[in-house]
């Protein structure tokens, strides 16, 4: 065992003695996490950065009651935490603001909007529809979508109300309670009553904004709690690739033969090399956790659970590193395959973007990556969930490690004559 530990420790020393490698696997994810944190406002003060209000411009060219109701909805108290609405008079100016990125969306209420919901006094027929227009900024798809959904909900409510009025008038006519001549005036008065100022609240009440914490303990959400582990796990694959490369580079440089000429078994050499790969990944993750805790005051959660997750993630990543080393013909191939897997696992596993609304196939595929399982665990712990939250991720990572170790061992055994001997 001593010799296995000796080889492990030597490998970790060689890895972390290379300042370029250290800069990449420690400073790289730290800087990226810092950048992600700045972009998401994680450093804006407090633990819970507020979701910013969506800037909207509004142009009411109609001036009617329905238009006023829609304007009142957008500028009212119910949506004041969500929308920051500015009224303009010129539709072109409003479009320009959206095009310049100064507003996420423009709501343009053209003339005739309100009247389009009122039946003609003489004929009782509804005029041609005049719709409110929502102009969205493609660069702010979320904000534009929110505004569009508010306007759509209003329009749907208005349509429902008009349908109700028409149904009511039809009932009055068929029951004889009103004569055909009285219907237009009745419809006008019903419409005015429905969309009068006093009814705006009722109309607006279909649209409310509610804020809920989804975590069990109600801890505020910190984006850095996602991106710090995301970046750490992204670079974990790179760290184990560096370690795996030494399996072949030591053979090329003669140090492997020298080890085997010493009173050391090939099992001890292989154990030491595998342990070295694991140790490199473990130290890298642990260092990042420590640094983000000290520098960014990030709370990773229960320390024991975090440590367990780090060990499991490092083991799973080591398994992937070994598999790469087992199939690659030379250390150059290991580097290339390692880089490809680093990026692929980062994308699939959610290191860059959360996979909340991923396609089912993508969600399934992400589960072959250590990134996905470890991220699930780390984010749960950071949100204040207990140790039980990491049981499934840890188990999945350990199973992944066992399967990959077995596959690599089988492949190495076939190549042992070429790999472990001169």
């Amino acid at each position: 065992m001593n010799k296995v530990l000796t080889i492990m420790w030597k490998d970790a020393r060689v890895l972390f003695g290379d300042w370029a490698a250290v800069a990449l696997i420690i400073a790289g994810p730290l800087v990226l996490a810092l950048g992600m944190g700045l972009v998401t406002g994680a450093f804006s003060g407090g633990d819970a950065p507020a979701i910013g209000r969506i800037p909207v411009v509004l142009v009411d060219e109609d001036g009617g009651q329905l238009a006023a109701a829609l304007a009142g909805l957008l500028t009212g108290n119910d949506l004041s935490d969500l929308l920051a609405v500015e009224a303009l008079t010129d539709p072109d100016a409003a479009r320009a603001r959206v095009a310049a990125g100064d507003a996420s969306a423009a709501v343009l209420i053209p003339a005739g909007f309100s009247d389009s919901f009122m039946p003609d006094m003489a004929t009782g027929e509804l005029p041609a529809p005049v719709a409110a227009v929502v102009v969205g900024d493609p660069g702010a798809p979320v904000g534009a979508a929110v505004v569009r959904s508010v306007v759509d909900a209003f329009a749907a409510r208005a349509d429902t109300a008009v349908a109700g009025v028409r149904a009511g008038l039809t009932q009055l006519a068929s029951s004889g309670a009103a004569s055909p001549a009285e219907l237009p005036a009745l419809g006008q008065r019903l419409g005015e009553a429905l969309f009068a100022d006093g009814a705006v609240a009722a109309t607006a009440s279909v649209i409310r904004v509610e804020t809920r914490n989804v975590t069990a303990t109600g801890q505020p959400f910190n984006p850095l709690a996602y991106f710090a582990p995301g970046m750490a796990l992204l670079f974990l694959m790179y760290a184990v690739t560096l370690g795996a490369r030494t399996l072949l580079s030591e053979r090329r440089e003669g140090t492997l033969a020298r080890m085997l000429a010493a009173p050391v078994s090939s099992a001890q050499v292989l154990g030491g090399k595998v342990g070295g790969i694991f140790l490199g990944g473990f130290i890298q993750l642990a260092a990042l956790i420590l640094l983000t805790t000290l520098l960014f005051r990030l709370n990773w959660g229960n320390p024991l659970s975090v440590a367990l997750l780090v060990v499991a993630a490092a083991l799973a990543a080591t398994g992937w590193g070994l598999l790469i080393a087992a199939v690659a013909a030379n250390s150059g191939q290991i580097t290339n395959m390692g880089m490809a897997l680093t990026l692929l696992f980062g994308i699939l596993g959610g290191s860059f973007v959360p996979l909340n609304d991923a396609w089912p196939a993508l969600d399934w595929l992400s589960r072959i990556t250590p990134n996905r399982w470890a991220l699930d665990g780390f984010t749960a712990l950071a949100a204040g969930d207990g140790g039980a939250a990491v049981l499934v991720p840890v188990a999945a990572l350990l199973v992944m490690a066992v399967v990959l170790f077995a596959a690599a061992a089988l492949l190495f055994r076939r190549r042992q004559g070429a790999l472990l001997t001169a």
Partner: protein
Amino acid sequence: MNTPIVTARNLRKTFGDFEAVKGISFSVLRGEIFSLLGPNGAGKTTTINMLSCLLEPTAGTAEIAGHAIPGDTLGVRRAIGVVPQEIALYDALTARQNLEFWGRLYDMRGQALARRVDEVLEQVGLLDRAQDKVKTFSGGMKRRINIAAGLLHKPQLLFMDEPTVGIDPQSRRRILDMVKELRDGGMTVLYTTHYMEEAEELSDRVGIIDQGQLIALGTQAELTRVVGEQETLRLHLAEEAAAEVAAVGGDRAAASPDGGLSLFNGLPGVLRVSTVDHQIVVNVADAGAALPGVVGRANTLGLHVRSVDIEEPNLEAVFLHLTGRGLRN
């Protein structure tokens, strides 16, 4: 000193269809420097690798310090030190860190290891560079640390596989002196080289190996008796002449039946001719008698001879006599 510490019996090694070592048998006596001399590709490293337990022999056996190959490879590896042809060190670690690592693989620990590391660093003249990373060392210095790593555990037998390849003459001198000091201190050294001068300077006994076979073995005096009283004329040519001779040397039609060059066929006393670098090497029965004819023939052929050396029988001549080729062809 007369008891063998290494006994190799009919060692063979085959890689697929290629037989790299074709049944080598020899002994190395305790306290001697035994050199395996041969050109590149002769099978020296393969033989060393079998004796170091890095390669399993296809056939044959060996015994090292009482431990059998195959069989007790762990015992063999405890008894031997290996200085490989490659500089098998970790550039990212310091000299001391490298030696401590290798020492731990030989079950050395603590203060004993620290003291021994200092001793070997002193022995190779690099104690003052102990804390420097190996990547900052020159080639010669790396070779010396490479040797130091093989000496850490005070082995009974040291295998040195071409330890002076690619280094400057000063470092090479230092290493050769170190090898002699080791032998004088009681260590047995199995040394492989393709440099005749090294084998001649260092060795108590020499085994000449070529194309996987041991073609001669003995002390230098015993080996040179193979060529009898033959002497060697070494003609140093101008560069332009050397190119012509090299072309002729590759022309089978111009070769003698025994594989040597036909340039001096018919001259009295000329036994064998070959080329090495910018030189024509002529084996003659009597240098004084053969010299005028050889130089005259060279001038007739338009080969501008810049100088001639007359050499007593040496290992190069033995190799030439036995194989028809120079050591560095």
